């Protein structure tokens, strides 16, 4: 027996979990999607991801060194941020975009609040929104076609100026033409053809596999779901946020997203395209910036879904996943405040 025994508060045993395990679990879940991205877009995807990761880790280390606090880049949180920043960028952006985005994300999005656990907004999304506001041209035009696939998900090139766009952008353009009373008959016919093609089974399958243009990480729904299944299995994320999120988007897209009136939208297309799956499973579920209570999670997910649908259908951008998650991050403390679970025994006295 030791000379001096340890005295501490209970409990004296702990579950075998740690922050590192949580973070590296997310990294593992993201690996299939990264592999898919490299397959579809080539080594450039790997290069950009690596840049973002290195920039994140370095920024974190430098700031922590400057502040004179322990350097914690091994906990994996900056690693996850780096991967997610790269995953939210088009594969054709210049090399400095992920670097600057990462620096901003870690410095302003996280470390300025004191580091892990304190940041009110998801750092990766802060980085992405910062880049989007600063260099919109780079972030909306540098898409790459997948190897052997099409960029927009449709083989038709009927509409000018959208040849270099993602499925959602094409959808937006075509819907605008349909809605615009001044469109010529020729344009209308083309637009309707494009819309039909976007809703076809071929497009859906391509979207699911990832054979369309998009951000580095959001291309293959299939591989993202594989990772998500791993996270759910390991209890690293809660089903409520992604569930409520995706369901809300699907329902709203079905009700309001159609070209010919209510209840004609293609829910499946909206769920599979863009960054919804990536956002719902990997970013909206960020523990630090989402509510802790089950009820709060549902509200959070629904809120994300509503905002995404609003931005996609009537907003200024074709895609709204990152902004809607950021907006709900902003609302998270408020949600937390008003969704405290009912305490055990907090009941009206019965007689």
């Amino acid at each position, binding site marked *: 027996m030791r000379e*001096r025994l340890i*005295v*501490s508060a209970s409990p004296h045993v702990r579950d075998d979990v740690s922050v590192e395990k949580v973070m590296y679990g997310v990294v593992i879940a993201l690996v299939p999607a990264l592999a898919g991205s490299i397959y579809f877009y080539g080594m450039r995807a790997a290069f950009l991801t690596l840049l973002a990761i290195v920039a994140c880790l370095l920024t974190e280390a430098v700031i922590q060194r400057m502040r004179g606090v322990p350097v914690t880049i091994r906990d994996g949180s900056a690693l996850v941020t780096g991967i997610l920043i790269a995953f939210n960028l088009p594969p054709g952006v210049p090399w400095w975009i992920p670097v600057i985005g990462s620096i901003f994300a870690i410095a302003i999005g996280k470390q300025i609040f004191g580091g892990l656990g304190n940041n009110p907004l998801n750092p990766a999304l802060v980085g992405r929104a910062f880049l989007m506001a600063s260099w919109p041209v780079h972030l909306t035009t540098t898409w790459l076609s997948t190897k052997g696939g099409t960029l927009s998900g449709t083989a038709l090139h009927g509409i000018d100026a959208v040849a270099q766009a993602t499925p959602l952008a094409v959808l937006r353009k075509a819907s605008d033409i349909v809605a615009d009373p001044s469109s010529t008959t020729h344009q209308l016919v083309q637009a309707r053809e494009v819309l039909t093609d976007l809703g076809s089974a071929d497009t859906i399958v391509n979207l699911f596999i990832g054979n369309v243009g998009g951000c580095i990480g959001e291309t293959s729904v299939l591989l993202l779901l594989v990772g998500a299944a791993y996270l759910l299995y390991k209890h690293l994320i809660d089903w409520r946020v992604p569930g409520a999120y995706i369901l809300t988007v699907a329902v709203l897209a079905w009700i309001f997203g159609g070209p010919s009136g209510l209840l004609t939208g293609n829910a499946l297309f909206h769920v599979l395209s863009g960054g919804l799956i990536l956002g719902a499973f990997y970013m909206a579920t960020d523990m630090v910036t989402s509510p802790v209570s089950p009820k709060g999670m549902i509200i959070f997910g629904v809120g994300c879904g509503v905002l995404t649908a609003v931005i996609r259908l009537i907003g200024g951008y074709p895609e709204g996943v990152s902004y809607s998650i950021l907006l709900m991050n902003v609302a998270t403390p408020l949600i937390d405040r008003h969704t405290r679970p009912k305490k055990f025994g907090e009941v009206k006295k019965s007689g």
Partner: protein
Amino acid sequence: MQSVVAKSMIALTGMAAIFGAVLAVASRIFVVHRDPRVEQVLELLPGANCGACGFPGCQGLAEAMVQGEAAPNACPPGGAETASAIADALGGDAGDVVPKVAVVHCKGGLSNSVQRLEYEGIEDCRAALLVGGNPKACIFGCLGFGTCKTVCPFDAVELDEEGIVHIDRVKCTGCGNCVIACPVNIMELVSEDMRVHIKCSSHDKGAAAKKVCTVACIACRLCVKKCPTDAIHMDDNLAVIDYSKCTNCGVCAAVCPTDAIVDEIPARPKAVIGGKCEGAGKCKEVCPVKAIEGEPGERHEIIREKCIGCGLCMEACPTKAVNMVGALGHQRAKGGALESE
């Protein structure tokens, strides 16, 4: 041009008159009694209602100030002058009591006391005690997690590597937060001019105390016997100074075998016997450390190495021949307190 000016004048005056009248009438109808002190403070505030203070307008800030929830300098636009005016208005009933400072009655650090366990948990003395975690074998001693430091609003408590707290006498305002917070009650507020303290709180019996801490009070009673003013008594195996009787002579500190009594006066002056000495021998009688020698009727001499500068001889000398002269030029004034030249 003239008409524009005229119209402007008329319109503005008209509006001002109407609004003024409305407000005047309203203030009669809707009069509400307010605390006069709030009104007074409100007068002094800028009245811009800018909200920079974080309170709901100047009214809110004034109420908070009167209730003591906001500091007099809480108004940024007002600046220093407003702050001092408000501070005056709110009145300082500080009185003229002798300022007090906190004293720590323990000096058993890591190197001179025995540790009985390894504590692991919140760095707070109260929290540690809740799980039985006083790491010292002496259960009366300073835990060294710095709760007093946390609660000190003036940054006056320092925690050294030994795990013992010290009070910065300059910063300490005697607010007493640390005294209340200390779970082992080793802090005490003492008049600022008291400089000799018993740095132990152990009520253990001498042998037991000695076993767990080399600087503990072992209840040997030497200090009680030697104290020229009877200011020390034993309380359940612990020497305690009655500060109302203490004269800072430092005799107790000099005789304490375990160094549990600390004399904080940095360089004590030493006694010097001048030409007025008539050899009355009173000084020799009172000297607690036998530092004076000399035959009756002859001039007495001080043995400098032995003198602890307590000043008893100076007071005892019937011819006022003894002076206290210190290395830094301190001279002992009447009553025992030190004054700088």
